């Protein structure tokens, strides 16, 4: 338990530096060789029918690709802490739990489930090694670290592994189109109107991601963006309260991706913090909740988040825009469920702040 934060530091460093990409592999051939986030080349069998994913982000992608029923095992995190997965994949309670998200793997259970491929996060390299060495099953370590391009690459890669390239391309195109539409509508925003944003994430005023692309996508500037080398990634950096005062952001976004019971940092708390009284965002009451991300990303949520932020920063350009309706449409497109986003908002009580 003591090594954990440091571990996250270094794991993120290695995860962020390697990007998922294709390697050759002609479609006619029996197997498939891919390169994962750890730059390992992994041979995948031609037909992948049984999948274990202990990487929540990939589990969601698999459901989006329509291959949810090929999942035979997932991680506890998805079951215990994810309020979204049971919405997008109602059969999730049938899935066997094989580990925590990153570690404590039940090796025997994994072997009993006889998967064709195992998806893991690249956080703990020794687990990747141990899994592959002991099970002789191809292990793919993937993470997008909150980067749009990497998220799309990852979707295509998983699509390829599952033989669902068409669906993957379709979703990537849908995603890019949606984000581009937002970008285009913001083309004419003058530079000085772009807000400088501080993100209070993970239930703490002083924890912030140094990379958060939805903010950049809508023309915002993440004030913490340059404080640490990029490879330290979007996971979590701790800053000094003084530093926040010094940055003097125009907007403060508070991680709202939690049901109220689990919220340890609230908008009201930020507004009432006397230390922040001189900060522009607090003075002009521009402190808002945002969806943020939780245990890894989800493409549908990233899209919704981007739309939400666009509307939040430039309300005059998005009059009549209905986030809940748009969100439900996006969920429908990705996961084929109706009213999914409404349901998520109900659980997280984020209708309190997504409605205006």
């Amino acid at each position, binding site marked *: *338990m*003591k090594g*954990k*934060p*440091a571990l*996250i530091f270094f794991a993120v460093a290695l995860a962020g530096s390697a990007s998922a990409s294709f390697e050759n592999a002609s479609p006619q051939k029996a197997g498939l060789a891919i390169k994962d986030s750890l730059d390992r080349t992994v041979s995948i069998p031609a037909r992948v029918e049984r999948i274990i994913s202990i990487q929540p982000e990939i589990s969601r992608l698999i459901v989006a690709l329509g291959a949810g029923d090929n999942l035979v095992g997932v991680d506890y*995190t998805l079951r215990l*802490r994810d309020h979204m997965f049971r919405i997008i994949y109602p059969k999730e309670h049938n899935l066997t739990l094989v580990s*925590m998200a990153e570690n404590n793997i039940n090796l025997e259970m994994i072997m009993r489930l006889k998967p064709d491929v195992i998806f893991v996060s690249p956080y703990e390299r020794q687990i990747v090694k141990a899994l592959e060495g002991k099970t002789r099953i191809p292990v793919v370590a993937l993470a997008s670290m909150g980067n749009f391009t990497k998220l799309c690459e990852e979707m295509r890669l998983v699509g390829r592994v599952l033989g669902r390239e068409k669906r993957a391309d379709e979703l990537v195109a849908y995603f890019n189109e949606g984000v581009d539409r937002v970008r285009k509508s913001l083309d004419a925003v003058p530079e000085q109107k772009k807000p400088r944003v501080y993100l209070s994430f*993970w*239930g*703490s005023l*002083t*924890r912030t991601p*140094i990379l958060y692309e939805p903010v950049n996508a809508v023309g915002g500037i993440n004030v*913490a963006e340059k*404080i*640490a080398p990029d490879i*330290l990634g979007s996971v*979590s*950096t*701790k*800053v*000094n*309260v*003084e*530093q926040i*005062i*010094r940055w*003097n952001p125009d907007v403060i976004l508070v991680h709202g991706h*939690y049901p109220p019971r*689990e*919220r*340890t940092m609230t908008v009201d708390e930020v507004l009432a913090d*006397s*230390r*922040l*009284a*001189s*900060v522009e965002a607090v003075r002009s009451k521009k402190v808002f909740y945002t969806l943020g991300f*939780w*245990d890894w990303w989800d493409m549908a949520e990233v899209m919704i988040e981007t739309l939400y932020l666009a509307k939040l920063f430039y309300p005059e350009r998005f009059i009549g825009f209905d986030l809940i309706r748009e969100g439900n449409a996006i969920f429908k497109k990705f996961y084929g469920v109706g009213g999914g986003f409404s349901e998520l908002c109900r659980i997280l009580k984020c209708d309190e702040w997504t409605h205006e």
Partner: protein
Amino acid sequence: MSNRRRALCIFIYVLPLLVFLFSLYLGPFHIPLRGLFKTLLSPLFPSFKQGLSEGYISIVFGVRLPRLLLAMMVGAALSVSGASLQALFKNPLVNEYILGISSGAAFGAALSIVFLGQHFPRQISAFAFAVAAVLAVLAVAKKSDSPIVSLLLTGVIVSAFFSALLALAEFFASPYALQGLFSWLMGDLSMAGGSELAISFPLMGIGIVGLILLRWRMNVLSMSDEEARSMGVNIGKEKFLVIFLTTLITSAATAVAGIIGWVGLIIPHLIRMMVGVDNRRVIPLSAALGASYLLLADDLARSLASFEVPVGIFTSIIGIPFFIFLLRKSRKIWL
């Protein structure tokens, strides 16, 4: 006492003030000396507020001051409790971590965060489990023929047990609480502010003052129990008092600042090397040097990079090699 040694003592007592003033100046938000001076005096002379930049007052009084005070208090608390426990157990290697007090307190505080929420004062649970840990250590060690060895060994075992419980608590924690737990466990002074301080400050204050008052008694308690008893010490009562006070301050410090290792071991050692083993000097000087040491370590934590590094990392990174250096240089003369 030689003049040189006397000068050294005075220097150590003045050091916290010097380091405090230096640290007050330090920080990501640059405040020029003149501005800092005016800000500090502004509560006394309201006219000084004119012309002060917006954030100065909230940075100095809202951010820096509470944090520096917490660093000093925790540094003093851990050093004093380390020195006292070393005397009480007649063993210069004992400290609150080895006796399982820190682990017990950390588990108690984590349990409180996970199940009772962020706003419930976690000092209560921290203290309860710190007491449980120390009682377990003492009960097991008492049954042995070689109390000192078994004390260390039992301490290690009890610490490991509470660390395991802590891992279990983490398993049940929501990801929100979890993120908080991680940084806090590594030792983190940035939480300074709010009700936690209001509770922990007086507890640490009482403990530090109490142990400083007991400083000479600690000499007598460091004799064998038989000797101490024959010299008129009510061993049971006085041991209880010292363990109560050290557990109180350690759990209060752990509840707000997490586990900050090595301070309680290194500071008293340094003091003993410089001024001898008389606890009349060792205990108050440890308080002063411990306060300065943690302030400096926290200065590194908050100003080395734009992001924060848990201060516990620095106390260990600086402390351990320094400790090895001391051990090599002076062998065992202060033992």
